[in-house]
């Protein structure tokens, strides 16, 4: 049996130089293959998820995974592991929970609790080669529906599966298809929303980069069900690798007869066109996205008449998110009964998250719905960096909210997150620790939204602008208690009077932080103090003479040399030089650096 070496070339690993690793490995493999009994293949794959430990190199069938591989390690991997079958201890993944190195990535807690449906092929196939996808059962679902199922049966199967839209709203996918199917108005369109824009989110990107064919297959299945012949994939232009892989996949699928005219000899035609988005966050909103495809300014319209009835060019349109499409082929193959066994009563299946922020295992994860937030952060994510005190987890991007520790045992599903004041969103999870200021977080998101709102309606544009003004004042120490009432009133107005989903959910970061972290707001306003030591006007750092051992680590890490002191004697901070970056606080192992009130300058 041949060996296969998989080099992760997802965005995270590419940024850690994995393309060089791939090239070097390829060079040495070709060099040593000549005389070897066992030949080795090498493949560049999509994102494996554990971006924190990248670049990742997997060696099959030996089930070995190397982490943080450098180009210089290539020859050693070929000589030792591939030829001599020896492990290279230092390259194995260090599991922070087990506190030891593990041979396979599958042995880590990070992977153990995951269940891959949408991400089933990513990391296992070369996305640039359709044969890899086909070898793993790709396009069998399409063949199945074309030969064995009527359009109605396809819709019924998706409806029974309980799949809900993964783009954030959670609308039942099968019901959407059914509503669209009932409308006798042609042509109909199928759209894939790949305009992922939440800060810190890269779920859709990873799927488009790592397994583009699953999206094509999912869309084609839907097109057959609702009798559409034209599809669009809207990809933001910054995602150059996603664009490249998607284009290639469409070309290969057409060559193989999985797309285009007379698909698999069934006389069913369906073609997909790629539309590049200009990078406006609001174009992820379905109606703005359709405006953008039509060539207009990407501004949303009211959804009083749904897109399934009047969407793209006023024709019935099905728009689903990348991850939703990736689920479809698997549901068709394994059946709705199987899908129903995963997840909770109202949220079936799995959900892909990009786990980022102050968490040890930064990366891409897919977990069954119903897992608690605590397990997601502490088991899959491995807990907070430096085991600092956990403060909150932000879900749902700028439209979501911050969930405090007291609600960490809520299950991850559409309804529970909504109940907590947040939302599922498309799947960004940002972990925050004690060094995150919640007022600053709310300010950050509103600043993002003030730039990314389309600016069409008064409620969203002016409301967000003024809420941001209040939050900035509070962060600068100029807030008053009456500001909080005004902030709340504005939140409700923006929430209820905005035109589209962006505005309607924009107050969520403010409302949830006000609800769960009001004390932090009050500390800013009344005590002129930022408890997390983030807001610069309201923060100063002090060294506790009793606790300081004079180790000098803080002084070494101070970028402005504001800390002085003799070794083994208490150090002091010169506040006139201090830029309040907090490095000293973060590096002190003796709890000697304290966050204090801001000093008036």
């Amino acid at each position, binding site marked *: 049996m041949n060996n296969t070496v998989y080099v992760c070339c997802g965005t995270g690993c590419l940024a850690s130089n994995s393309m060089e690793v791939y090239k070097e490995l390829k060079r040495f493999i070709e060099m040593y293959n000549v005389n070897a009994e066992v030949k080795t293949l090498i493949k560049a794959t999509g994102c494996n998820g554990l971006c924190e430990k990248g670049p990742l190199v997997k060696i099959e069938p030996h089930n070995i995974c190397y982490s943080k591989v450098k180009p210089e390690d290539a020859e050693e991997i070929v000589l030792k592991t591939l030829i001599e079958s020896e492990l290279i201890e230092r390259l194995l993944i260090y599991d922070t929970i087990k506190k030891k190195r593990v041979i396979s990535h599958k042995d880590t807690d990070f992977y153990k609790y995951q269940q891959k449906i949408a991400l089933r092929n990513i990391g296992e196939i070369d996305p640039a080669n359709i044969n890899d996808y086909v070898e793993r059962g790709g396009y069998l679902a399409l063949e199945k529906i074309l030969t064995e199922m009527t359009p109605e049966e396809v819709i019924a199967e998706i409806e029974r599966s309980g799949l809900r839209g993964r783009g954030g709203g959670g609308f039942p996918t099968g019901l959407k298809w059914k509503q669209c199917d009932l409308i006798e108005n042609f042509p109909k369109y199928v759209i894939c929303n790949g305009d992922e824009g939440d800060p810190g989110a890269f779920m859709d990107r990873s799927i488009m980069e790592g397994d583009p064919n699953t999206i094509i297959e999912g869309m084609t299945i839907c097109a057959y069900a609702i009798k559409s012949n034209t599809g669009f994939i809207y990809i933001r232009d910054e995602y150059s690798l996603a664009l490249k892989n998607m284009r290639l996949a469409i070309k290969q699928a057409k060559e193989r007869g999985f797309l285009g005219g007379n698909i698999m000899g069934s006389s069913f035609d369906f073609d997909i066109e790629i539309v590049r988005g200009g990078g406006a966050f609001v174009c992820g909103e379905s109606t703005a996205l359709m405006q953008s495809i039509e060539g207009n*300014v990407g501004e949303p319209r*009211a959804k009083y*008449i749904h897109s399934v009835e009047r969407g793209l060019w006023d024709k019935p349109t099905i728009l689903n998110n990348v991850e939703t499409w990736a689920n479809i082929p698997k549901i068709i193959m394994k059946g709705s009964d199987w899908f129903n066994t995963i997840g909770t009563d109202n949220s079936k299946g799995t959900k892909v998250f990009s786990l980022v922020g102050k968490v040890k295992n930064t990366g891409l994860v897919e977990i069954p719905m119903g897992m608690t937030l605590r397990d997601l952060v502490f088991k899959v994510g491995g807990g907070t960096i430096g085991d600092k005190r956990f403060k909150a987890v932000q879900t749902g991007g700028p439209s979501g909210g911050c969930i405090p520790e007291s609600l960490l045992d809520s299950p991850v599903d559409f309804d529970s997150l909504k109940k907590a004041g947040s939302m599922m969103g498309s799947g960004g999870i940002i972990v925050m620790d004690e060094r995150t200021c919640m007022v600053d977080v709310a300010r950050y998101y509103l600043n993002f939204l003030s730039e990314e709102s389309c*600016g*069409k309606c008064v*409620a969203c544009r002016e409301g967000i602008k003024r809420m941001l003004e209040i939050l900035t004042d509070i962060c600068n120490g100029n807030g008053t208690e009456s500001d909080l009432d*005004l902030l709340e009133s504005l939140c409700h*107005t923006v929430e*209820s009077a905005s035109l589209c989903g962006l505005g309607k959910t924009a107050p969520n970061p403010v409302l949830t932080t006000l609800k769960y972290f009001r004390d932090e707001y009050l500390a800013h306003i009344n005590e002129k103090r930022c408890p997390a030591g983030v807001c610069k006007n309201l923060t100063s750092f002090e060294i506790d003479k009793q606790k300081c051992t004079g180790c000098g680590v803080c002084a070494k890490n101070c970028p402005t040399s504001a800390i002085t002191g003799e070794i083994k004697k208490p150090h002091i901070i010169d506040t006139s030089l201090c830029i309040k970056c907090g490095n000293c606080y973060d590096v002190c192992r003796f709890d000697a650096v304290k966050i204090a009130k801001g000093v008036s300058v």
Partner: protein
Amino acid sequence: MKIIIDGKVCIAQKGEMLLQIAKRNNIFIPTLCHSEALPGPGSCRLCVVEIEDGGRKSIVASCIYPVRREIKVFTDSEKIKAIRKDLLMLLYARTPEDETINNLRKEYGVPDKIRFSGDKEEHCILCGLCVKACEEMGSNSISTIMRGVTKKVSTPYDEPSSSCIGCGSCAYVCPTDAIEMIERDGIRTIWNKDFELVKCEKCGKAFATKDQLEYNRKKLSENHLDVYCETCKRVITGEKLRDIYQP
């Protein structure tokens, strides 16, 4: 189909906009961005009302809400009043010196002194009616540019637009008179571009720009168009009709 607005039973056609039905029944809903001729921006949000549809309450913009079922509508509930007050406060903060906005905000009880301040020169509320009017005219010379808090209405690259015919439709539809149109010495200046004004051949009133008349002539594929202002056109048509019936 019957819908109930503020307790009053109103007859409505399926697909009709809520605002239209209310207007017909003499129920007043405030608006800024609404124009009968240019429906659909739905951007000022002032016309929001509360609806009850099968027990479910929601807030909708009445100018763009098509009625599809028998529903109950509340145009002036406490909730709606509070929203309108906030919206007018936000608009007042943006355009502190604008007369239309000031009149409305007084009506809804927004005090003189508010927490926020804005540019005293600003009158535009970004409703988008001007852009829509220009689009309908067919010249497409102005558009909203940028997004979010930096959004504004302008010509391409803020330079005089080659396609602008100086018709002034944008200024006519503007609810807050935010578009500056100056006429002096036979020249109309709008969007940083000067236009020669043409006088009515009958009454001598300078009523349109040369570019505008030329645009109309081309659009109608005529070799020559009589240059009459709206009033004189009406008088001439009236005279013609009179001559037909009273020979």
